[in-house]
C-alpha cells in the first residue's frame, strides 16, 4: 500500500505492506533505530512511540494504522534539528537516568506525553505514567527524579 503520515514533523509517503509492524517499518525501512524492540508483545514499553499525542506500542501496531497520523519517535523529540536535545533528554543525562539505555527512548516519549498533559506531576503520577516501561538497570528512582527535574526546568527553558 501507499502509506502517508507525518513523521517527526515531516509529511512522508512510502510503499509498504499494510501488515508491516510499525516497529519494523521504523527500524528496518526508515532506519530510525531509536525505537527499540524487546518483548514484541506489549509488555515492556521499549517500542513506545507517540501517535496523535498519545503513547502507543510500535510492536503492536500495523503500518496501515498510521495512515494520516502524526507520529513522534525519539529521533524527533528534540525538534527538527537533530543535534538539539529536548529538556527531558538533558534532564536524563544530568540526573543519571540512563545506564544501558535500552528503555530510554520509550521512557522519554512516555515522560513527554505525561508532561504535555500534566506539566507538574507528582512522583506517584510519574510512577503510574511509566508503569508500562520496564527498566532492568536503574531501579527507576533516577528516571523519576529526572522527569521531575525536566518538569521544573521547563518553564525557564521554553
Amino acid at each position, binding site marked *: 500500500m501507499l502509506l502517508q503520515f507525518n513523521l517527526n514533523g515531516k509529511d512522508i509517503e512510502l510503499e509498504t*505492506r*499494510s*501488515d508491516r509492524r510499525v516497529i519494523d517499518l521504523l527500524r528496518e525501512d526508515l532506519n530510525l533505530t531509536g525505537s527499540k524492540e524487546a518483548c*514484541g*508483545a*506489549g*509488555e515492556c*514499553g521499549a517500542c*513506545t512511540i507517540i501517535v496523535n499525542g*498519545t*503513547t*502507543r*506500542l510500535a510492536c*503492536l*501496531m*500495523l*503500518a*496501515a*494504522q498510521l*495512515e494520516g497520523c502524526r507520529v513522534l519517535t525519539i529521533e524527533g523529540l528534540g525538534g527538527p534539528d537533530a543535534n538539539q536535545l529536548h529538556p527531558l533528554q538533558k534532564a536524563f543525562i544530568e540526573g543519571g537516568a540512563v545506564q544501558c539505555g535500552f528503555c530510554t527512548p520509550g521512557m522519554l516519549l*512516555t515522560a513527554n506525553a505525561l508532561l504535555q498533559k500534566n506539566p507538574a506531576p507528582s512522583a506517584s503520577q510519574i510512577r*503510574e*505514567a511509566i*508503569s*508500562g*516501561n520496564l527498566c532492568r538497570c536503574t531501579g527507576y528512582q533516577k528516571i523519576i527524579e529526572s522527569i521531575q527535574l525536566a518538569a521544573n526546568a521547563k518553564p525557564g527553558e521554553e
Partner: protein
Amino acid sequence: MSKVLIPRSLEQLWQLQAENKDNAVFAGGTDLLVKIRAGKPAPKALICLDRLDELKTITELPYEIALGAAVTPAQVLASPLIKNHFPVLNEALRHLGSPHIRNMGSLGGNIMTASPAGDSLPPLYVLQAAVELQSAAGTRKLQLKDFIRGPGQTQILQGEILSRIIIPKEPVFSHHFFEKVGLRQALAIAVVSLAALYNLDSKQTVSAIRLAWGSLGPTVVVQPEVEQFLLGKPLTTTRLTAAADLLKQRIEPISDIRAGADYRRRVAGNLLKRLNPNER
C-alpha cells in the same frame, strides 16, 4: 500475510467484510496481534475498527449509558459520566495492563477476548450490561452474561460486530467496589478479582448486593447464595468471614501458571472480607 483494511463508516465495513470472507476485525490489536505473533493463523484480511466514530463514543441515553465497542480504557477513565454513574468500571479499568495498553485496547476487544481474567467483565456483570451486536442485516441486543459462553467464546455470529455496550443507570448503588489481586502492580493479569455493588439501609444492613468474581472460573463467577446470605445483615467481619466460608465451599477455581485452585479459593474469600472497610 494479511491485508489491513481501515473502514471509515459502517457501510464500508459491511462491504469490506463481504468482499473479504476470511477476515477478522480488531480495534487495538493488543490481544489479536499478540496471538498472531505467537502463531495463531492470520486471516487474509484484518479490518481495523479504530476509525469508526460510531464505535468511539460514550453516550448518555435516558435510562442507560452506551459505550462504543472501540472506546479505549483510557477514554472510559477520562469520562466523568462513567466516573459518576459506574465507579466500579472506572476502578477496574484503572488496573488494566499499562497506560499504553489502556491507550490502545478497547472495551469491545476485552469482552470479545472473553478471558477469565478480563478486567472489564466482573464490573459489567454486576452492572447488568447488555451488548449490542450489529451486522449488515441489522442489530440485536443480548445480556452480557448470556453473550459470553466460555474462554474466548461468545454468541457472536459470522458477519456481526460488537457495536455498543449498554449499561442501565438504575438501580443506583451507593457502594461500588473493585479489587484485583495480581502478581505485581502494573501489567498484572488478575489472579482473582471481585466487583461488588451494594446498598446499606439506615441501620447499616445490606439492602441490595451484587457480586462477581473474575479469574476464578472459565467465565465470571456469580454466587446468588452468597449474596442472599449477606442480605439484611451488616457487613461485619464475622458475617463476611462466614460468607467467605460459604463461597469457598461452593466454588471450583481454575488453576493456571499464575496460581493454583487452592490459592484462588482463599483469595476469593479474602476479597469478600475486604468489603468491610476495616479489613482493607
